[in-house]
């Protein structure tokens, strides 16, 4: 199996076979977890496309580089060096032998109170966890946890359904995320439209608000729009907000084309499909 060899400052930290999609990032749910502030939560992924292997940047903050050229998407050749933050991923097309290069199941020192795994132990531990999950997927059988059979009915099952398809193996990471836009239909605002890139967009008079309301009796914070991926949820916090003419009480998922009236300001929410 082709593999990615993770290196940092000349040292090899980990090797990862590229069977299903390999997601790379800082968050622990990635296949390759790189705990470094220069790496985005979901930074990039490497996957099979027909006979090729492709690296795709997931709109990371600091970018993904192949042989020192910034790329958004590129087919990998044997020996290509993918740079993510300061970590190198060397693409080895032939792959070593098929034996996974993960550290064996890490063992834990016996301790009474709360303990902490340092980064190296942590990586070994997560590596062996992932090896177990991968092995379970290939065998089409439930994973064996370190403490006996695990009944991870939900998570691994998803992977088990279609492991053979290869090229179309469902990626855990969504395609590059869409960014919604609020367009000012009427009322006073400092811009004619706002791109909702932030995790939270506030509408109100407060100086923390992105969409700034003007006028004497406007609430400091009228509405919060929280973004999770391409899902946007509005929560009213003050004043009066209507969505498509109905008063907004609790949280509400915003849909493309929704019209918001926030304390007199009329905005159209659009989320390109």
């Amino acid at each position, binding site marked *: 199996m082709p593999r990615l060899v993770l290196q940092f400052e000349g040292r090899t930290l980990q090797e990862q076979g590229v069977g299903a999609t390999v997601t790379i990032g*800082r968050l*622990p*749910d990635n296949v390759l977890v790189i*705990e470094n*502030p*220069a790496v*985005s939560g979901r930074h990039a992924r490497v996957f099979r496309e027909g006979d090729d292997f492709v690296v795709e940047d997931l709109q990371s*903050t600091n970018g993904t580089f192949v042989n020192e050229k910034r790329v958004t998407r590129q087919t990998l050749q044997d020996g290509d060096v993918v740079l993510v933050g300061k970590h190198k991923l060397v693409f080895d097309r032939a792959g070593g032998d098929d034996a996974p290069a993960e550290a064996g199941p890490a063992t*834990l020192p016996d301790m009474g*109170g*709360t*303990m*902490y*795994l*340092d*980064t190296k132990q*942590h990586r070994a*531990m*997560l590596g062996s*966890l*992932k090896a*177990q*999950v991968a092995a379970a997927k290939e065998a089409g059988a439930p*994973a064996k*946890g*370190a*403490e006996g059979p*695990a*009944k*991870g*009915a*939900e*998570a*691994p*099952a998803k992977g088990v359904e279609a492991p053979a398809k290869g090229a179309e193996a469902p990626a855990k990471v969504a395609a590059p995320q869409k960014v919604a836009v609020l367009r000012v239909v009427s009322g006073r605002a400092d811009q004619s439209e706002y791109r909702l*890139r*932030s*995790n*939270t967009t*506030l509408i*109100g008079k*407060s*100086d*923390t608000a992105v969409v700034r309301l003007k006028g004497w009796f406007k609430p*400091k*914070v009228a509405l*919060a729009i*929280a973004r999770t991926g391409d899902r946007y949820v509005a*929560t*009213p*916090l*003050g004043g009066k907000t209507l969505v498509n003419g109905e008063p907004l009480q*609790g*949280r509400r998922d915003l849909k493309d084309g929704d019209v918001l009236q926030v304390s007199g300001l009329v905005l159209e929410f659009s989320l390109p499909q």
Partner: protein
Amino acid sequence: MRLRVGAATDVGRQRTNNEDAYASLPDQGLFVLCDGMGGTAAGEVASRLAVDTIVGQLKAAESTGRADPSGEGEDGYLLETAQLAEAVRRSNRSIYEQAQQNAGQAEMGTTVVGAWIRQNMASLAHVGDSRAYLWHGHRLEALTNDHSLVEARVQAGLLDREESLKSEDQNILLRALGREPDVDVDLHEVPLQPGDYLVLCSDGLTRMVPDGEMAEAIARVREPELICRHLVDAANRNGGVDNITVIVVEVEEGWWRRLWNRWGRPSGGGRNATVSPAV
């Protein structure tokens, strides 16, 4: 927006010292809770140091106004969230440095869960297995995912949630403050509405008291100080194996709504409680 706040900490039934520390500053909307570790009093040092550093940093940030936070990769977050994250990172550095210089404290570390509430928005930061919950619309939502080996196994599909509660290595953390020069801090932003309750707590509570019982306590008791006392008692009743700390922040409803709750509701409270009474 008015906040009503309660907080309680207790050594539990089996430990001799309390390594949890917290700060509750309703006027600043700032709440920080830490669960220290590292044996022979060092855990107490770490948790106290973390709480004090974070509070000190944010008070300074508040007085200097909109100074640009130096944290990198924080784009997309509110200023308060970025400042909270930076304060947590500084506290990590402080503990780490102190641990390096004192042989007796070399193994010390701490979890943290912090909330900074400004104008109806709660910025949350967390590292380790201390948790934050939001009680909203009569449902209790977990806002954080533990940085523990057990949680990693659950996420990887190797262990189901039920079994995880019985697992013996619940006390193995994958992230903590003070153990490495840099730490990854999980951040969340949560809009708060009147009637919501925000709960911060250490694992001494969550391992002893199931989420359903916590939801039930909030629905029935309503008064933050009493909720805290109720939860600490429940944890002790169920074994009290670890130190227990809990902070409950209620976002108060307008006076008309409070009157309605007092007079308009059937007695006994918990009109719409989703969990059946069993306390």
